[in-house]
Each structure stands twice: as structure tokens, then as C-alpha cells.
């Protein structure tokens, strides 16, 4: 109960949500086309892939590291998965293969970052080119077409209306929430990101925890990649690039501290939707391309500014309370 309060104070949740609400109100005043069920589903559909990647990135950032490999990993795992599907026609096998690839890459990231202590920025940056090189070596630069029913992963609907990507996104949100809030591992990564030395002193296995975080991140990235390829109805390795920075942006707009130790799945979801709404409303309004980029940049800075100031002072206490020594000892050993 105490633990619950400390991870996310209601005020912290509220600030990002408040920005979202204000945006929705403003946007619906700007054009009647915004607040329609179709358009809202449209926005959710568009942000779903980057949001799943943001859950991965969020978890890593909370632990005090960064994972720049997720974009290219998504491109690689997604494309390899489509290749296997085209070859075998077995969707389940293709999905499991994609997930396995994600886990392998995550394990390698974790090996170098957690075990050998190399900076995650460099390791995962290097992993970008490894992932991209690996898939291009295999495909010789060609994309994969005619992927048949694989596209269900990205274009299917549930009950005929709700895009399947949105269902995936919400599912991953719940999984992330459960991991962060209710698992021992979740509490550990907050503790490590908040204060590594203290976490270590408290008996938390820092290396092992970080390693697991990278494996989860890899798996999430692979899942996002497979959904992306389904949505594109093709296996296109290069389409994954750039998602890593979009994911960082969504995570931070969603209230995750870049310094580590702070952040929630729910906040990340809201942050990602905020950015999605921004893109959507500017297209609905027909804002010119270059102006869009400037407006988007400034509004994102504003959103983060508002978020940071609205919860200033409440931040410090949270981190250290997150995993009190007694709690981790109780449940840990």
C-alpha cells in the first residue's frame, strides 16, 4: 500500500492526463472531424507500434539505461518473422521466432551492458547496425512482399471495429503495468534507476535485473516489429529505424524521468497518445509540412515543462521509498 503510493502519486499521473484532456478539448473545438469514433481509433492505431516500443524504452530508462537498438531490432525481427511466415505458412511459428530473435538480441545487449558494464548508449547503438546488417545480408536489400495473412497482425480488427493493433497496445500496457507495479523485478528496476549504489547495498542483484530488463525490451521490440510489418503488409527492414527516438520522446512526455527511477506504463501510454494527437490534428487542419515540425517540437517541450513543474518536489522522496530495504528483503529472500 505504501509502496503503491510511492511509485506514482496521483498528482504525477494527473499532470500528463491533464495535458491530454486539454488537448482533446482544444482539438475538438478546432475541427468537428477530430472527435469522431473513427478518428480516435485512427489515432490509437497510429500510435500503437511506437507505444509498445515506448513501454520497452520506458522500462530501460527507469532502470537508468537506454536502448537505442529497439527500432532496428523491430525492423529485423519483424522482417525475419515475415520471411519465416512466407516460407512455412505457420503464423504461430513466425511469431515465436520473432520473439526469440528479440530475446536473443536483448540478451546480447544485456550481456555487454549489465555483465561487462559497457555504456548502454554505445552497445545498443552498435546493435542497431548489427541488426540492420544481419537482415540486409539475408535479404540482399530486397523487401519481403506477398506476406498474405501475416497482415492480420497489423490490419486485423476485433469485433469488426477495434483495430487489433490497439488491442495489442492495451494488452502490452497492462503487462508492463503488472511487471512494473506488482513484480519484484519491477520494484528492483525503480530502485536501481533511482540509486544504483543504494539498490546494490540493499541486496538487489543489479546486473541480473538489468539483464532481464534488456531481454524484455528486446522481446517488446520484436512484438512491435511484427505488428509493424503486418500493418505495412510487407517486410521492410528499414521501416524500423527512427522508432527508438520516437519512443524516447513518448516516454519522457509521459512523465518518465530521463535520470531513471521514475515512470509508469500508464504515463507512457498517455504521452504517446499526446504526440499522436498532435500529428493527427495538424494533418486534419492541413498545416504545412515544415511548420508542423516546428509546432510539434515546441509543444513537446511545453508538455514536458508543464509535467516537470507540476510535480516538482514530489519526485525526490519517491525514489528512495520505492523499494525500502525491508520490503525487498521480505519478498526477495
Amino acid at each position, binding site marked *: 500500500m505504501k509502496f503503491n503510493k510511492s511509485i506514482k502519486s496521483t498528482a504525477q499521473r494527473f499532470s500528463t492526463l491533464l495535458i491530454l484532456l486539454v488537448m482533446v478539448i482544444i482539438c475538438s473545438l478546432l475541427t468537428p472531424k477530430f472527435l469522431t469514433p473513427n478518428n480516435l481509433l485512427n489515432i490509437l492505431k497510429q500510435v500503437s507500434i511506437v507505444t509498445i516500443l515506448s513501454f520497452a524504452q520506458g522500462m530501460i530508462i527507469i532502470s537508468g539505461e537506454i536502448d537505442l537498438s529497439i527500432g532496428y531490432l523491430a525492423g529485423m525481427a519483424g522482417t525475419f518473422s515475415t520471411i519465416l511466415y512466407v516460407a512455412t505458412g505457420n503464423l504461430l511459428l513466425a511469431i515465436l521466432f520473432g520473439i526469440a530473435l528479440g530475446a536473443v538480441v536483448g540478451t546480447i545487449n544485456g550481456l555487454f551492458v549489465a555483465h561487462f558494464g559497457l555504456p548502454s548508449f554505445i552497445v545498443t547503438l552498435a546493435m542497431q547496425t548489427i541488426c540492420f546488417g544481419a537482415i540486409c545480408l539475408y535479404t540482399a*536489400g530486397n523487401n519481403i*512482399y506477398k506476406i498474405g495473412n501475416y497482415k492480420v497482425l497489423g490490419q486485423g480488427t476485433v469485433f469488426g471495429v477495434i483495430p487489433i493493433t490497439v488491442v495489442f497496445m492495451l494488452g502490452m500496457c497492462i503487462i508492463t503495468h503488472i511487471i512494473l507495479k506488482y513484480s519484484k523485478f519491477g520494484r528492483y528496476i525503480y530502485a536501481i534507476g533511482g540509486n544504483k549504489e543504494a539498490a546494490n547495498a540493499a541486496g538487489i542483484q543489479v546486473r541480473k535485473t538489468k539483464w532481464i530488463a534488456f531481454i524484455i525490451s528486446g522481446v517488446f521490440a520484436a512484438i512491435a516489429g511484427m505488428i509493424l510489418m503486418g500493418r505495412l503488409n*510487407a517486410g521492410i527492414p528499414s521501416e524500423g529505424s527512427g522508432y527508438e527516438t520516437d519512443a524516447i520522446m513518448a516516454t519522457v512526455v509521459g512523465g518518465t524521468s530521463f535520470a531513471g527511477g521514475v515512470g509508469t506504463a500508464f504515463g507512457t501510454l498517455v504521452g504517446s497518445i499526446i504526440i499522436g494527437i498532435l500529428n493527427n490534428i495538424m*494533418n*486534419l487542419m*492541413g498545416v504545412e509540412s*515544415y511548420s508542423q515540425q516546428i509546432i510539434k517540437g515546441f509543444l513537446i517541450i511545453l508538455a514536458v515543462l508543464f509535467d516537470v513543474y507540476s510535480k516538482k518536489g514530489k519526485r525526490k522522496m519517491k525514489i528512495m521509498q520505492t523499494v525500502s530495504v525491508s520490503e525487498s528483503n521480505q519478498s526477495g529472500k
Partner: protein
Amino acid sequence: MKRKVFSLLLAMTLSVAVFAGCAGGTADETDTGAPDAATYDSNDPAQVTEATDSDGTYEIAFLPTDMSATFAAWLAQELQNTVKNYPNMNLTILDSKNVLSTQLANLENCVTQEYDYIILHPLEPDAEAEIVDEYIQAGIPILMINQSDGGSQYASNVDCDPIEQGAVVAVVAAEKIPENGKAVILLGPSGNSHSIGRREGFKQYLFDKRPDIEILDEQIGDWEKSKGMNFMEDWLQAYDQIDAVIAMNDAMALGALEAANDAGRADGLTLYGVDGLADAVLSIKDGGLTATCVQNANVMAKTAFEIIDKVLSGETEFEKTLIEGELIDENNVDKWIDIHTENGQIQ
């Protein structure tokens, strides 16, 4: 102990990598695998002599932009096929991996190793023209392929005019888009010369000739399918009527098509792109994409080697040629499916 084993393993891996790299760097490398730029160490005398000690054969280097890009890979393949017709020539491929500094380093190494001819697939023709001219004057002829010559005086050039690429498709669009039709436009990266040229082609042969067509919106989709898809999803919400998608490449048009299909609004919609690679051709066959323009890498490679042959035999110093962009639509799509099946893009 653990650490020792690890460092031993690491050392072994590194040395294997070095050997593999050297093997890949020999001048008779012909497979499509992308040899590493680092392979070529200009300080290594064994390698410097490599390009010249051959028995009267001409050593030719090809420096593609990025072997992971479908067109560059296709072009490389066509060049490799064409070089077989010239028994006195040998082709080596050095990938630039879409990084200008890598391409410049490769160029420098090729000069150091005294290649007889360099085919440059420039990443930034305007930035590279000057150095290309310097190398040519120092005695190594260079041909710039698939891009403009960037103002280079002495380089040979084989390119496909981007304005024409747009124009070829624009002519079809001008016929097919209905009276007072409404169009959306997807552009390539800001400042990209091919995107600007193609857009100009569409302006001259579509929008200037059909002033009745209304442009609803025009956005930068960075050549990416997913961005074309996102923009189209938003446009379908914003506009009740969209008759045509004009995209500066096929990937963006195909993304827009996915969105239109998803929203059930693809009926009566025509979509135009440029590139004409496998994805586009298959889509035209399925009745998706309406028309595209292809830069025929096969013709490009053949033209390039005709020029190279003339230059190496002393017939001319350089030659600049524009090849024609070819229209692909429902009428000739089968021919292009065959071509792309033959070159391995369609399996």
C-alpha cells in the same frame, strides 16, 4: 580464469574477422555481399599493388550508396551481369552504407589502389563533384551513376532525369484523374533532388495542364511506407473525397493504398508513384497502384559499361547520358514482373 577464456575468445573472433575482411577485399570480389570499407587499408602495400598487378585486365570499382537499398542492390547486380560481357574488366563493389564519409574514404582508397575506373553511385553529387574532378585530373576516370553529376566537369554520367520520371507518370495521371478531382501529395525528404525533380515533373505535366484538380494537402513522407500510411489515414478522416494520391516514390503510395483499403475507400482512387521495383509492380498487377516510372538498372548498367569501354580504349575522355524513365502500368506490368523475377526481387 573466466576472464582469460573470454579475452582469448575475443582475440580469436577479432582475428577471424580480420582475415575474413581481407578475403572479401580482393579485387575479384563479385558476390553481392557488401565488403567492408575497413577492409581496404591504404597503408597495406600488398593491397595497394593488387589493383594494378593484373595481367592486362582493367580493375573497376563500384561504390554504391547503400547495398541495403533495393535499387542500389539491383544496380549492383546488373553491373555484375554486364561486366561479364567484357572479359578484360573486373568489378569490385565497395558499399558506402548510406554514409558520405564512408563513400569518400572508399573513393580515396580506390584512387590509392590505382583502380583503372571508378563507378560512383553518389550519395551527395553536389558535394562530391569537386573531389571527383580532382581525381579524374590525377588520372583515374570516374563515372557517376543514377544521380546527377553534381556539376562535375570531367566525370562521365549516366542518369535518369527526375523531372522526366515525374512527367512520365503525370501524363497518365492527367488522363485518369476525374474532372475537378481532389489529390493529395506525398514528398520525399526535404531538399532531396529526386523528390524536387519528380514534383516538378508532376507540376508541368499534371497540375499545370489540369488546373481543375484541387490539391488538398502536401506532406513530407520521407520515402517511407509507414509515413504514407499515417498521412493517408488522417487525410481520409479530414476529407470526404480523395480521388488521387501523387507520391514521389512507390513506397509512400503503397502505404496510402493500405490505408485506403483499410478504410474501404480505395474504389475509384488512383495512386501514382515512382521507382517501379517489385512491390510496385506486384501492386499494379493486383489492381492497386495505377502507374509508376522505373529507372531501368539494366539499361543503366549497359550504358555505363559502353561508356567505360570507350573511355578505357581511349576513344573518348568522358560522356554524359540521360536514359529514359519507363512507364509501368497495367499494360506492360507482366513484362516487369518477369524482369524483377529474373533479377531476384520477386521470388
